[in-house]
Structure formats: C-alpha cells, structure tokens
C-alpha cells in the first residue's frame, strides 16, 4: 500500500467522523431540547406497567348497598309489636324548635 493510499484512507475516516459529529450536533440543536421534555423510563423492565399516581382522581370505594329481599319469608304470627299509647305532648316542642330553626 502506497503512502497516498494511506493518506486517502485517513482522510476518508476523518471526513466520516466530522460528518457524524456535525450530524449529532445538528440533531441536538433541532431535537435535543424537545426530547428533554419527554419523561424517560427509568429502565425498560421497571417502567412496564408502573404508572405515575394521580392523586386528584379518586374512586368511590364506600360499600355498595344491595337490595335485601325478604320475599322468601313466610309469616307465622298475627301481631309482632307491643303498642303503647300516650297523650300527645310534643306539639309545643315542635313549634318551639320550628321557630328556633326559623321554619
């Protein structure tokens, strides 16, 4: 191999490296800043299925009240409760509370 050939190879290598560095530099200038706004996954494996918590959205986890059917019961008695009657003495209480509560 002549010295001219060696010089030519070195020139080609250096020019390729320069083009690559220019490409990286241009790429950073055009896309670099935009790319930095995206959140990078911590690692490929760890990022799978692991979403960031959003505390402002809550699910209603109070117990659901389901209808309670009593149709299957067969009544076997006449009267269930014990009854007591007293004179109605709450009219004044109702009126007083109504006026106090502005009704």
């Amino acid at each position, binding site marked *: 191999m002549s010295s001219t050939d060696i010089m030519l190879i070195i020139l080609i290598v250096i020019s390729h490296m320069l083009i690559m560095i220019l490409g990286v530099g241009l790429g950073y200038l055009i896309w670099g800043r935009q790319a930095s706004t995206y959140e990078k996954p911590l690692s490929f494996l760890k990022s799978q299925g692991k979403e960031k918590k959003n505390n402002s959205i809550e699910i209603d986890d109070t117990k659901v009240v389901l209808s309670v059917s009593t149709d*299957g019961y067969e009544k076997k*008695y006449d009267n269930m*409760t014990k009854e*007591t009657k*007293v*004179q109605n003495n*709450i009219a004044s209480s109702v009126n007083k*509370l109504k006026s106090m509560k502005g009704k």
Partner: protein
Amino acid sequence: MIGLDVGTSFIIASSYDGDQIVFKDFRDAFYVIKPTTPIASKMVEKGLKGKIFIKDETGSFIILGKDAIEKAVERNETARRPMYRGVVSVKEKEARKVLAYILKEVVGKAKKKGDKLVFCVPAQPVDQEDDDFDVGYHEDVVKSILSEVGYDARSVNEAEALCYAELEDKDYTGIGISCGAGMTNVCVMLNGEPTVVFSTTKSGDWVDRMSAVATGEPDSVVQVEKEGGGFTVGEPNDNPVLSAVASYYDRLVEYTAKQLSAALAGHKALPKFKDPIRIVVAGGTSQADGYIAKLNQKLLESEFPLPIEVVKHAEDPLHSVSKGCLIAASILD
C-alpha cells in the same frame, strides 16, 4: 309521619294517632332453628305455636323478638342480633335480611308514597377504629329498606333526637346521653343546634358479655337476669350473675364518665354555657337501679369540664329517642 329508633336491642316506632302518640316496640333479636327432617320440622312448628316466628325458603324457623331470647335461654344458647354495636353488621348477610324484615313489619307500608320518616343513627365512636363500624353504610342500608316500603327516610343523630325530646324547657340547651345496648351516644346541644356529638362502644351488651364470661353463663341468660332487676349498680349481690352485672355496671359508668370528660375537655366546638347545664339520660341500659346517681358521682370525680345543674333520667327512657325522631320528622314538614 313516623319516628324510628333503630337500636341494637329495641326497634321503636312512634307515630301520631289523633291526640295521642303510639309507640310500637320490638325486641331486636332472632334465633334460628334448622330442622333436619320433615317430621322434625312439623314438631318444631307445633312447639312454636303462639310465638313470633317466620319460616324461610330453606325450611328454617326464625324466631323473632322476645321469644327468640326465651328460646335461646331454654336451649342454653345466645340469641343473635341483626345489629352489632349500633350498626348493621357488614359481614352478617342473614342478620341484614332479618333486620329488613323487622323494620318493614314495625313501620308497615307508607300510607302514601314519600311519607316522612326520621330514624336515628349513632355517632362515630371515640374509642374504636374499626372497618366493621360504618355509620354511612348502616344509614344507607336502613334508608334503602325503608324506601322499599314507600318512605322518604332521613336520619338524625341518636343523642340529638334525645335532646329534642327532653330539653324543651331548657331552650334545647344541655347534654343528652343515650345509653343503648350496643353504644352510648352523646350530644351537646346549644339552642337546638348540636355542637358536639360522639359515641363510645361500651354499654349494656358489654356488661352482659363480661358478666357471662365471669359466670360461665350465656349472654342471653345474663341479659334476662339483668333485665329482671334486683340489683343496684356497684353494690354487692347474693346472686352471682347479678353480682357480676352490678360490678361491671359500675365499671361501665366510670368508663363512660371518663370518656365524656376526656372528649369534652378542651374540645374546640364546646360552647361556653352561661349557666350550669342539664344532662338528660335515656336508653335501656340507664334503667338499672342507681345508674343515674352513679353517673353523677363519676362525672364529678372525673372532673367533668362543665358545671352541672342536674343529671336527670328521661321521663320515658325507652321511648325518648323515638319521640325525638318523631319531633324531628314533624319539623321537616
């Protein structure tokens, strides 16, 4: 219009009947008998004649109310409760069904759709943090059952209802303490407005359970003996069951007074009362001999943070809360 006290031990409905108020009481208890053969089923049904009971789709007999307690005692067992510590039990599916049945039977169908009904609910306890204690769920379950029979049902705090029934002559200013079977509920009221409400989870059932453990008897047996009277809170008794009951009652009163004082001392919402206040006490547990005097004594000993005018028993301790609910329903109109 109906007022409804949904208690652990009693369900009491009140309504107007001309110039009178009618109270309908029902013991909140049940006992299940599961016959194994058709012949046994017939025998059991015959034996239950005259008792209050229902038969379910599986052929089991569910004895209700006072009869359930009697049957349980007869068999040396304990009757079950549709509610536990003042609220519907989340885990007990059968109990919820029985409670729904009892509630529907006690209040009956609404005369017209949307009839007003006010029922009582307990306050959040200060001495227990438990997922099973869910006042919101209890309230929703009761509301849903009552709406099925046509009522527009709303809730009121149990001790607040008691204040409505008992503090009229004090311009609705004072303290109401409702001593039920499952809980003790407290409301501090100022001019008709509840300012502090809370509850404790120890009451009559605690006395029964502890006395049952001490004497080796079932809870139901202790309950029947206790309700028969013949003892004074904190005083010795010849009957071993009543002796245990009297002793545990004394501890219960002391505990309640201490919790009351601790909960109110330094409470930000506690009003500055200008006069000594009346404390009115109701509920089945408060009916034991010596209960009121002992509570008064223990409140003074525990440095209750407010000056007390008097600790007074409600005029009708079993019906006061239901009456208060009826007053609340009448105000809604």
